[in-house]
Structure formats: C-alpha cells, structure tokens
C-alpha cells in the first residue's frame, strides 16, 4: 500500500515546513515587535488609517486586565455581529442560492465556533450559508480569531521578557499587525496558488448540469416515519440533473488552513475536489496548516532572545507529531483483519478516504489537522481504524498543544513548559524558573486552569451527552464506536479543533447549545488565565541563569515536556479511551 513515494512526500513535506518556518518566524517576530519591515512600508498607511478610524492610540500600553478585556470585548462584538448575520442572511444580498437564516441554536453554535477558532460545523456549508455569510461572517473570523491567538501569545512572550512592569503591549496593534502583515499576505498568496490549482473563486451560485448517465438511487424513509411503520421500504428514484455548487472558495480555503480554522465551504471539507483539487493543492493545504504554528516557535525563540528555546518547543511538538503520525499511518496501512480475510490479502484501510490521496496523505492530513486545532479534513475520521481514529482524538485531548491553533497552540505548550519547569525545577533543588521568571503559586494556579478547562469540557460534555436521550439519540453507530463518536465531538469542541467523526447528528438544540458553551469556555478560560500569567510574569524580576538553573533548551527538557504533555493527557483520558477506540481495536483483533 505505502510506497517509497509516500515517504519521499513526507520527507519533502517536513523539509518544506522546516525551511519556510524559520524565515517566517523571524519575520513575525519583527512584525510583533513593531520593528520596521518591507510590508510596513507598503501597508503602513492602512495600519495607521485603521488606528485613526477606530480611535486607537497604538503607543498606549495595556496591563493584563485591559488587554484581556479588549480581547474579550472584541470577540463578544464579533459574536454578536456574526450571530445576527447568520440569522438574517436570507434577507441580505450575495445569496444566489437563496439560503435562509439559521435556527437560533445553530446560529449560536456556529457563531461561537467561528469566533473561538474552532469551526465546528453542525451545518453543511453548501446548504446553509450564503456567499455573504461565508465571506463577511466566516472568513473574517477565520482571520481575526487566528490573529487573536497570535495577540495573546505575543502578550505572554512580553510577560516573559519584560521585567517589573505591568505593561503587556496593546491588543489592537497586535491584532491589526497580525492580520495585516502576517495572515492577509500569506492568505493572498495561497489563494492565488489554490485558484491556479483549480479551486473556484466566484460570486455566482449553483449551476445545474444534465447527467450524461442518469443515476438510480434509493430515498431512505425518515426516522419519524420509520417509528410509526418499521416495515417502510426505501423509495427508488432516478437522478438526471446535478447541482454544482460554486462560490468564493479559494479566498476562504486559504485562511481556513493558515488560521488553523478548518471550517469548510462544503460539508466534505478538503475531501471535496473543489476545495482540494490536486495533489499539489493537498500538499499546500497541509503545509499551510502547520506553517504558522511551527513558525511561531521560532518567533518565540527570537523574541525571548534565545533561538534554542524556540527550537526546543518546536522539537517537542514535532516529536509528538511524528509519533502520532506513525501510529495513525501504521494503523491505517494495516487495515482490518476482517477485510483482509474477505479479500484474501492484507490491505490498507481505504474506507472514507479519497482514492487520489491514499493512506499516507490521508493519515498525514488527519494527524496534521488534529495536531493543530485546524479541523479541516481530507478523509472521514469516523472511518479510520480504531487506533487510526484514536490518534486524532488524543491529539485534540492533549489540549491542542502539538502545534495547536495559531498562537493558542504555542501558548498552551508554554503553559505545559511552565508546569514541566515547576516539577523539574524542584527536582534540581531550586524554586522553579522559566526563562528567568520564578514560577510561584499564582503561575501554578493559572497554568492549572489552562490545562483543566478543556479537560473539563471534554469529560463533562461527553458525560452529559451519554446521560441524556438527546445526546445518545444523535449516535449512528452501535457499541463502543457510538461512544467514540460522542467523545470525539466533545474532544473537538472543547479543544477548539472543529473536526468531527461523521455519524453523529450533532445539529440538535442540546449539542448546539452545550457545544457552544464548551467552545467558548475552552477558548476564553484559557486565553484569559494565560494573559493573567503574562501579567504576573511581567511584574517579576528576571533571575540570571547559571549552572544551578535548570536549562530549558536541552533535549532532556524537551523529552520531559513531551512526557508531561502525554502523561497529563493519558491520565485524564485513558479510562474514556478504553471504553471507546481501545476496546474497538481489541474487539477488531478478535480478543
């Protein structure tokens, strides 16, 4: 199944990532530090104009509370606008296919999902969103939710490098600069590349095509009808026409990947040939998902004045990523023994995969999209083998710190580094310190919060769903796999990923409302404690490093960080995973 070409592709992919992330990291450091760079000369007028229009004084520094308040209010406003837009999209222009407004619970869920960089979609893009919604609502949030992540990260870095101050920078300038100088240019280039590969970019709506060969199919009776008469048979039907959906796709596709958003134009997301037409577009999309989270590690290293610190974080993320990729790829290429028995030869698992991508590119995409908090998919995760499906689930449950969301992944990883420093620092006999800042009670408290909140979302959300009829009713598959579907849904929402195991009909009031709340808490109840952490760190003196200081750039520390991330995740989720994918796997092996 897997050929040497697959491995060459993987190698090429990693090389390209490595080669691009270093210069981008340096460039982003220049942008975030407000230094002079070529784009500032070209677009500086726009930046200054925006500040004037919005009445922002870019030189005014904020303390952590002001910063957090600005960040939160900005998102509240974004939520309100998006919610309204979703509700009344039927009355607004740029709606060639006549989409109607979303139901309140779905609009709540969707708005929450896009402002939190989750992009959980309880709707199908092609049936539920107008072009205006896709562009003005969803795509805008694809930009600003990612920029929010970068801003919070930048404040945290400032907390680490500044001394005895309350000032963490200005949220508005961080937001504007990240959008204008980082996300927009990258998205522009990628959109053009995707257009070139064949992704549509148009304001026009659906076209109808007459099929050369009519297709015979069956219409299954609805669930309600089946309840009254279980004996109902499917009705045969013939299709002669096909509706082909079009829209401003390339522009949304680019930022969907770059901003680790993942909300597709189509329900099928990047498995759809319009979103992801060629092997090259697939390669570019995967690269785009990892690019900024990886490059931000270097930005971190540059800004704290020690590139090795950035390499260490990148190393920890890469190690975790490759480990999980190996497991996913191995499980998928093994396939299931049952199918092997039927066809008489071992075969990789191709269910739910695009033939054009094959096992390696599907496993790679699935690992990338869940290692980061992207959630775009080019393969159906529900159809992965039990262990192959465990990989995306666990990657999300680890708190989206293996690359993670743009900005949010790295600040999550830094929080884990702080916890690691705490335990390791004690072991060398000193009050722990990270990058010269002492880790004391307040820092421990904030870091614990950041780690706990998403875990709570997953466990409580899943616990609620399996307790209620509505929660259980959404499940399509019997047995342990049904449990996996619910667990996956809340792992995805509570870690702001947004990918889904198909098979769960999540568009009902309770999933929508609870999911929306979980997404909101996980995003802001991690971002705000991170800002509090930054504020507390900024107020401290820096301890100079010496031989007695625990070095945080060594392979040993990197390994320890990986272990802490794994152990926290494993200890929390082993029981749940045992009742889901693990038992599925053991059952598949016929134990």
């Amino acid at each position, binding site marked *: 199944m897997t050929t040497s070409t697959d491995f060459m592709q993987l190698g090429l992919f990693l090389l390209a990532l490595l080669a691009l992330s270093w210069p981008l990291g340096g460039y982003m450091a220049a942008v975030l530090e407000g230094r002079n760079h070529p784009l500032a000369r070209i677009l500086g007028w726009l930046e200054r104009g925006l500040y004037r229009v919005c009445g922002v004084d870019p030189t005014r520094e904020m303390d952590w509370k002001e910063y957090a308040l600005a960040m939160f209010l900005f998102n509240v406003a974004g939520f309100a606008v998006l919610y309204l837009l979703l509700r009344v999209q039927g009355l607004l222009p740029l709606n060639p296919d006549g989409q109607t407004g979303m139901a309140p619970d779905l609009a709540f869920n969707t708005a929450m999902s896009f402002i939190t960089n989750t992009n959980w979609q309880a709707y199908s893009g092609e049936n539920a969103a107008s072009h205006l919604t896709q562009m003005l609502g969803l795509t805008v949030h694809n930009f600003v939710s990612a920029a929010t992540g970068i801003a919070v990260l930048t404040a945290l870095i400032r907390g680490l490098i500044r001394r005895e101050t309350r000032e963490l920078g200005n949220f508005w300038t961080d937001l504007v600069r990240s959008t204008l100088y980082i996300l927009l240019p990258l998205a522009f280039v990628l959109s053009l590349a995707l257009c070139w590969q064949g992704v549509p970019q148009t304001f026009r709506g659906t076209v109808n095509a007459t099929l050369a060969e009519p297709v015979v199919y069956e219409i299954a009776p609805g669930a309600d009808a089946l309840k009254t008469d279980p004996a109902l048979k499917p009705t045969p039907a013939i299709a002669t026409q096909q509706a082909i959906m079009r829209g401003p796709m390339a522009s949304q596709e680019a930022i969907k990947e770059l901003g680790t958003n993942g909300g597709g134009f189509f329900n099928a997301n990047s498995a759809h040939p319009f979103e992801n037409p060629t092997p090259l577009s697939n390669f570019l999309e995967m690269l785009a998902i990892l690019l900024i989270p990886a490059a931000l590690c270097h930005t971190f290293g540059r800004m704290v004045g020690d590139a090795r610190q950035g390499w260490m974080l990148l190393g920890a993320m890469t190690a975790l990523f490759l480990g999980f990729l190996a497991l996913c790829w191995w499980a998928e290429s093994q396939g299931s023994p049952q199918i092997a028995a039927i066809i008489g030869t071992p075969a990789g698992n191709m269910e739910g995969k695009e033939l054009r991508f094959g096992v390696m590119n599907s496993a790679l995409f699935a690992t990338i999209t869940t290692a980061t908090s992207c959630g775009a998919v080019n393969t159906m995760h529900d159809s992965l083998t039990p262990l192959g499906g465990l990989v995306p689930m666990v990657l999300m449950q680890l708190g989206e710190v293996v690359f993670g969301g743009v900005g949010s992944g790295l600040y999550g990883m830094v929080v884990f580094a702080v916890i690691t420093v705490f335990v390791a620092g004690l*072991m060398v*006999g000193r009050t722990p310190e990270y990058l010269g800042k002492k880790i004391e009670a307040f820092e*421990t408290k904030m870091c614990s919060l950041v*780690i706990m909140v998403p875990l709570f979302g997953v466990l409580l959300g899943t616990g609620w769903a399996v307790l209620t009829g509505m929660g259980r009713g959404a499940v399509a598959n019997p047995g342990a796999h049904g*449990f996996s579907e619910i667990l996956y849904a809340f792992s995805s929402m509570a870690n702001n990923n947004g990918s889904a195991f198909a098979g769960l009909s999540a568009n009902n009031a309770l999933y929508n409302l609870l999911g929306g709340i979980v997404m909101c808490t996980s995003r802001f109840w991690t971002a705000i404690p991170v800002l509090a952490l930054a504020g507390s760190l900024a107020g401290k003196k820096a301890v100079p490093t010496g031989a007695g200081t*625990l070095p945080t750039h060594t392979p040993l520390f990197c390994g320890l960080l990986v272990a802490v991330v794994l*152990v926290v995740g494993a200890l929390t989720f082993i029981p749940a995973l045992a009742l889901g994918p693990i038992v599925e796997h053991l059952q598949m092996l016929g134990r």
Partner: protein
Amino acid sequence: MTTKAQQAAGRPLFDPSIVRAAVLDSFRKLDPRVQVRNPVMFTVYIGSMLTTLLFFQALFGRGEAPAGFILAISLWLWFTVLFANFAEAMAEGRGKAQAATLRQARAETPARRLAGESREAASETVPSTALRKGDVVLVQTDETIPCDGEIIDGVASVDESAITGESAPVIREAGGDRSAVTGGTRVLSDSIVVRISADPGETFLDRMIGMVEGAKRRKTPNEIALNILLAALTIIFLLVCATLLPFSVYSVNAAGKGTAITITVLAALFVCLAPTTIGGLLSAIGIAGMDRLIQANVIAMSGRAVEAAGDVDVLLLDKTGTITLGNRQASAFLPAPGVSEQELADAAQLSSLVDETPEGRSIVVLAKEKFGIRQRDVAALGATFIPFTAQTRMSGVHLPGGRALLKGAPDAIERLAADAGAAFPEAVSGFVRDIAAEGGTPLLVAERDADSVRVLGAVWLKDIVKGGIREKFAELRRMGIKTVMVTGDNPLTAAAIAAEAGVDDFLAEAKPETKLALIRKIQAEGRLVAMTGDGTNDAPALAQADVGVAMNTGTQAAKEAGNMVDLDSSPTKLMEIVQIGKQLLMTRGSLTTFSISNDIAKYFAIIPAAFVGTYPALGALNVMHLATPQSAILSAVIFNALIIVGLIPLALRGVAYRAAGAATVLRDNLILYGGGGLIAPFVGIKLIDMVLAACGLA
C-alpha cells in the same frame, strides 16, 4: 553532612518513643479540621467515609458489591489516610522531642529586678514571667538568666548548653559584640546587669520551641504552589472518576452485558490516581527539612528562609574564619637597605614580646625559628609596653634611653617617619606593595630615638587559607552558586587571597555600608544572597540578605536581623544550610514525579478489572495477569497505601544530594524517581496480588 546531623541529634530515624507517639497522633489527626488542611488527603478521607457507608449498606441491605470487598477497600483507604497522618506525626515527633528539652530551660525562674541601671539600685524578686522589655535585672553566679537581654554592666562566663548543646562556657560582657544573653542559660561565674529585650513568650527560646515544634509552621511559598498543582490534579482525577460512571452505564447498554462500575471501585480508582504519595508526605517533607536544619544546629525563623536557602545564587563569606584561619602568621622578615635581617627580626621580636595578639606571637615564633632569638624578660630589659590604639595604629615597646621600637600598618609608620622628617626607604615601599600583591599583610617595624625615626623593614604576615576550602568552592560553582569573599583588606591583598582560595569574587575594604550596597546590587540583578554575620554593624546587611545567618555568639541586633541563627557559630555553616534547602525542594520534586508516574501502572490494574465484565476484550490490558478483578483493584489500593509508609524514611531523610549542575541532577533524579515510579508499582501490585491469591483472598 548527614553523619554530623545524626551525631548532633543522636536519635535514630525510627526512635521507638517517637513512633509510639506518632501512631497515637495519626488517629488524633483524623479530626476533619486537621484533614481539611491537606486537599489531596481530604478527598481520600471523604472516599474512606463514603466506602464505609457503602459497606454498611451492603451489610444491612442491598449493596452494590460483596460486603467483604467493600470492607477491604474501605479499610485500605482508611489506612492510606492513617499512613499519611503517621508520616506527618513522625516528622513532628522529632521536633517535639527537641522542644521538650528546650522547655525545661524555659521553666519559670526567680529574677532580681533592679529599680535602676546600677548594681546598687534597690532590687525585688519577681518571677521571670513578670519581666517586661526594658526591665533591668541582676544575675549572679549559678543563677539562670531569666529572659533575653543585653548586658549593660559586668562580664560573666555563661553556660549556653541548654540552647547550643555546647558544654564549654562562653564569655559575655557589656559593650561590643558579645553582650547578648539568652534566657534559660546559666551564669557560671561573676555577676552581670542585664537589660531585658523581649517580653515573655517572644524570647529566642520561645521562638525556637515554636519553630522546632512546627506549631507556628505556615506553608511556605513553594509548598503552596505545589499544593495548587496537586489540588488541580486531584480535581481532574475526581472528574475523571465521576464521569466514568455515565461512560460505564452507556457502555453497559451498548454492549448489552456486564454491570456499571460501582462507587466502591470508582473511589478506589480515584484514590489510586490522586497524588496521594506526595500529598500524604508533603507536610512531613517540610517539617523534616526544618528538623534537618535543627540537627545541623541552625534555627530558622521561618520555613520560607529554608526554601530561600535552596535558591541562593551568591554566598557572601567573611574571609577571616571562613576562608582563612582566624589569624595571620608572620612568614618572613624583609629588612630595609642597611639593616640586616637579624637586626630586623630582633627589633620585631622585642616590639612583640608583650603583644598577645596572634600576629604578635607569630612574630616571636618566627624570630626564634629563623635566628634562634629567645624569649626575653621584658621587665629585666626595663621596657614598657606601648599598647595599640585606634589613633596611632601602632604598638611596641619603650626601651630605656628614650628608644622605642614600634610596629604597625604601613601608612601609620609612614606618617611616623614623615612627622619626624625622616626618609622613608623606597625599598620598603616596594616590600609593602609586593607583600600586598601576594595576598599578605605588611607590618612595618621602626625604631624611634629622641629625635629621629628609622624604618627597619617589613614583616610579612600571611593569611593561611583553610585546607579543602578550594574544593568546596569548586563544588559550589558546579551547583551554580557564586562565592564572594568579604574582607576589610585592601584590594590587592584581597585579590591574592581570593585567587588562592578560588572564590569567584571579593569585596575588599568592606564596611557595613559597602556590604549592604553589594547585597542590594546583587539582588537587583535578581539573585538571592546568603551571608553570615555577628556584629551589630552586620544587622542591616543580615536583614537585607535573603538568607541571613546570625551567629549565636553575636549581638541581639544581629540575631534579630537575620532569619536564621547558627548555634555553633560556625562560619562555614552557610554551605550546609544551602544544601539542606536544596535537598528539601529536591525531595518534594522527586516524590511528586514518583507519585504521578505511579498512576500508569494503576490504570493497567484497575481499568481492565472494572470493565472486563462489559467488554471482555479489555482483559488484554491486564498485562500484570492479576488473579481476579477484585484482587487487582485491592492490590492497587494496598500498594498505594503501603508506598506512603515505604517512602517515610526518604521523606524524613531527604533524597540523596550531591553537588552537580542542574542538568545532571535532573537527569539522575528523573531516571531514579520518574523511571522508578513507572516500574515500581507494576512489581509491587503484582506481588501484592500474588500474596492475596496465595491467601485465598483473591
């Protein structure tokens, strides 16, 4: 270090009387008001009560599991709580035993209170508890000093063994740096007038008892931070276990067989997962750290200070007594042109005959060694002694015939020559520079006649650097600790000694203000400073330093400014204190790592046991091949309880400590406690399961 501490304490780790008291205390500590102070163990406590209720339910009605099984789990959960109590009680017990000895010294004594500050003032006898700050008392031979104070008149030899354990009496006298006396010590000879400096209950002895007993023990900053982390883990595991019930119910429905997980098993799982090992031992580790310090004869005024000691980056060490032997010794005579070496030696010896300072005596010894110049009778020579004064900064002898031999610091002799209009030989200036550059102290000898002064030459006084101190500093450097030598010497001398002793830096011509300024400067760089001091003029620096160790022989002001008191008054004690501080933090970190890595194995024991009824396939996770689901769960709980007891010696003694860089220490401790923590429970749980199976309990 350990051996010395043990000698000092003279008490084995598991002293039977302490163990007996600790066993009783572990039951006494079941009081919920005590339990609630430790969040981790409090949850175990609740779990124990819950399972006890479930046991009674099973006994009298429809239980969720066989009553015997619930009882076994419940009992072992109670044991977990008791073992943690026992660990704390053991640590406290050692302190209490020491406090009891101290209390005897504090017993009420009669005091002779004076109406005024003079000995002749009217006096009345009052109990020591009636004394207040500012009262003046007279203490005579064989009387106990009633309270802390300062001698304002008289000199006495005092037995301070009640506090220091040192039986040799010490001299205390009015004025200067030896004027402080401690309540509870005894005057052996003479009588003194003491002004009381502490109200009852606030004396040094009271504070010491408080610290030793741990009565006033407050959680230290690092302990609080660790507690937060442990509480967070506990909450996570609580939630993991709570949500496992609905998960299990769903699975039972989905699989169509088995029964949902019982509350008993969930309670057992929770207690196994919660960081009970470190949670149960945490306070014992803190108390034991303080205890180790006490055994090193150091009294810390707060736990915070002990923790800070582990963080110290810079040690300020006094040159004299710490780096060099207390006294300089004459090592060469360097005669001025036209003076023979023997002539110089003879003059130097004469000028030093009556000089009882160690330097003076060493000149006499050197003169005898080199030229056989014998001890002469001063009176027979008709000589009279010229004592050293701060104004002249010279000493020597008057000889008959108006001749005098003087020795003193170079600048003093230079002034003497200049005043007399005599020439100061260029060669001697050269000697002075050379000696200073070599780290020695030059002492010049001059002869004064009725109208002229002749500079005879220089005596080279050498500082003797203590043996082994260089290695000690190298060790500190490996630990990342910088040493700064503090001395009143001039920069040249200081640099030479600093180089010889291998310190990283030095502060020459140190005055109390420069010392304080140096500490502030180092602290401004974000470093933590430790220093020792004894004089009143050290007090500001002691107060400013993060770890200020006052000598017990020092003044009251110094003792109050510092946050530790060294009862041995040993200048090298600072290094030992740093080690104890580091060991305390290392013990906490290592046991935390151990405790958390334990959980992996417990999952392998409990998860298959809990769910094998629902999903038989999960039996594959029973990698330890434990006999039955019940024995698997019970074994995990028993292991979890026993490991607390097993680690008590480690918690009390502290993890092995060696001086090495942070990276090395981390690697070693990770392998030992992280790796060990991963493997130990697999072995332990399997063994316990085998025992259970063999006893037919499985």
